[in-house]
């Protein structure tokens, strides 16, 4: 299977099952239509008939031969050999956990998937006792996995920061004896950040996600305090301090775009102007009935904006400047293995979320969906049948993914979104799929453009180069 498309003046062909990306001239792009999974050394006569007005016969023959060479090398129309690996992960240990340390929030963002902080379960904070059980649970269920990830999430985790610190301290105190390496991350809205918390986060958290929607008027429209005031002026100086002291550790300033901010390139560039260079702005996922939701009919506008942003990325890099847009990051050479790509996030199988009550869910997005409760830390229950059901959710068990060109990059999408909006974890969330495919097309085109202009080799990770150079 291949995916061919034209974007920003580039003719691009992705060979899905080998991962090869080719940039073609016009004749090769046209000749590609006469190649296929059973192509032969000799070009089909119909190609000459149909393209003879446009191209010279010898040139057509030469171009077809070049494409045939790629086919022979397994870089064009390479066969799909991956289904045999699809069930490899069914007995995977649990290696990642989202600890909802707070089911309370000091913001009331309109689009919050967590029902403005409490996941519809009442406002409460996790006790250290429960958090400790969560750490014990992941250690006990992680088998021989060395690297364990724990994300402090909410609600707003800083509302329960003492328990965050106690939990980190507890995990650190026992990780060596269990031969584990904990990586902590935290996602915050920034309101409660102070110097002490900034120091702590920069020391202990391997990644921090800082929520900000971009321009003040955009951020303050939906990210509001309980009394309806915007939070931009409070949080931005705190984020700037945190990032300026963070060194080379990971962080993202992360926003959500809605139909109110379909010109989100302006928000990305605003974040850059504030001094942030690790930026993510992601589409709101919400009930299509709500006025800010991205609906199917909004897609053309959003696609145009992604293209605009992609061109902005290229221009910025060509000028010798840099920012990283998370959703355009793609490693064409040394990314995750195909096994990882088959299964994606691993929610409910390798990844679970726990609530302040000790309830275990497949992931943070399932919290509050009673039928997806997997167990409880306090009574020691855990539904292994449900774990197996999630383990079997991969790109080959999802009908719409099996033959999709983007399957090794999106890995089947978000099971929670699938359930919430399509009614089944195995049915792809349509709007999400289309957005993902557009982002991938842009990301690959950026690689082509940067390689073409000599700014960056397509096979090297631009971010790594940048970090090494500074």
């Amino acid at each position: 299977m291949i995916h061919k498309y034209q974007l920003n003046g580039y003719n691009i062909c992705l060979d899905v099952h080998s991962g090869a990306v080719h940039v073609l001239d016009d004749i090769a792009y046209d000749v590609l239509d006469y190649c296929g999974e059973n192509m032969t050394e000799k070009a089909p006569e119909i190609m000459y008939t149909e393209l003879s007005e446009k191209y010279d016969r010898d040139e057509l023959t030469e171009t077809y031969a070049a494409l045939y060479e790629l086919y022979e090398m397994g870089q064009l129309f390479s066969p799909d050999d991956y289904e045999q690996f699809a069930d490899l992960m069914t007995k995977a240990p649990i290696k990642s956990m989202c600890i909802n340390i707070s089911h309370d929030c000091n913001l009331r963002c309109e689009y919050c998937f967590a029902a403005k902080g409490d996941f519809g379960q009442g406002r409460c904070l996790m006790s250290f006792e429960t958090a400790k059980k969560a750490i014990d649970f992941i250690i006990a269920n992680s088998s021989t996995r060395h690297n364990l990830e724990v994300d402090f999430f909410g609600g707003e985790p800083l509302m329960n920061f003492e328990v965050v610190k106690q939990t980190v301290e507890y995990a650190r105190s026992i990780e060596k004896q269990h031969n584990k390496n904990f990586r902590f991350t935290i996602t915050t809205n920034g309101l409660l950040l102070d110097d002490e918390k900034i120091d702590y986060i920069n020391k202990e958290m391997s990644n921090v996600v800082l929520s900000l929607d971009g321009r003040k008027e955009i951020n303050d429209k939906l990210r509001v305090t309980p009394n309806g005031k915007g939070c931009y002026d409070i949080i931005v100086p705190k984020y700037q301090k945190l990032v300026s002291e963070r060194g080379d550790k990971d962080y993202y300033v992360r926003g959500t775009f809605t139909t109110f901010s379909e010109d989100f390139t302006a928000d990305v560039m605003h974040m850059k102007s504030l001094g942030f260079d690790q930026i993510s702005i992601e589409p709101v996922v919400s009930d299509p009935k709500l006025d800010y939701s991205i609906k199917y009919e909004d897609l053309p506008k959003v696609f145009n904006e992604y293209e605009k942003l992609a061109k902005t990325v290229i221009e910025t890099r060509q000028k010798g400047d840099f920012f990283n847009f998370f959703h355009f990051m793609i490693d064409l050479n040394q990314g995750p293995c195909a096994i990882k790509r088959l299964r994606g996030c691993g929610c409910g199988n390798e990844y679970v979320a726990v609530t302040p009550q000790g309830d275990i869910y497949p992931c943070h997005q399932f919290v509050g969906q009673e039928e997806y409760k997997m167990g409880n830390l306090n009574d020691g229950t855990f539904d292994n049948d449900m774990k197996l059901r999630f383990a079997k959710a991969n790109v080959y068990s999802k009908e719409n993914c099996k033959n999709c060109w983007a399957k090794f990059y999106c890995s089947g999408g978000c099971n929670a979104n699938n359930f919430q909006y399509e009614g089944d974890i195995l049915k792809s969330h349509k709007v999400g799929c289309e957005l993902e495919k557009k982002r991938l097309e842009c990301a690959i085109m950026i690689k082509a453009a940067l390689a073409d202009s000599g700014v960056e080799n397509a096979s090297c990770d631009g971010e790594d180069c940048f970090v090494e150079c500074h």
Partner: protein
Amino acid sequence: MFEFIEKIWYDKDVYYRLLKKCVRGCEERVIFVKATKHIKTLNNANLKESAVKGGCGECQASCQSACKTSCTVANQKCEK
């Protein structure tokens, strides 16, 4: 900051671009981009190889939803 030095040479019908890394004094890395007259290939097509050697599971979890910043696996790193 990204000042690559480009050398191009031909071998049969294939030309190679040799790109040196940036000039800020970090280690020089040489990478090939293979191209013919009509087609430039951007990467090593190693997905199949990775299926055979992969699956250790040590890599970072990737959240496929929009709410956590990790919507694709394409940006994940291999821990091997």
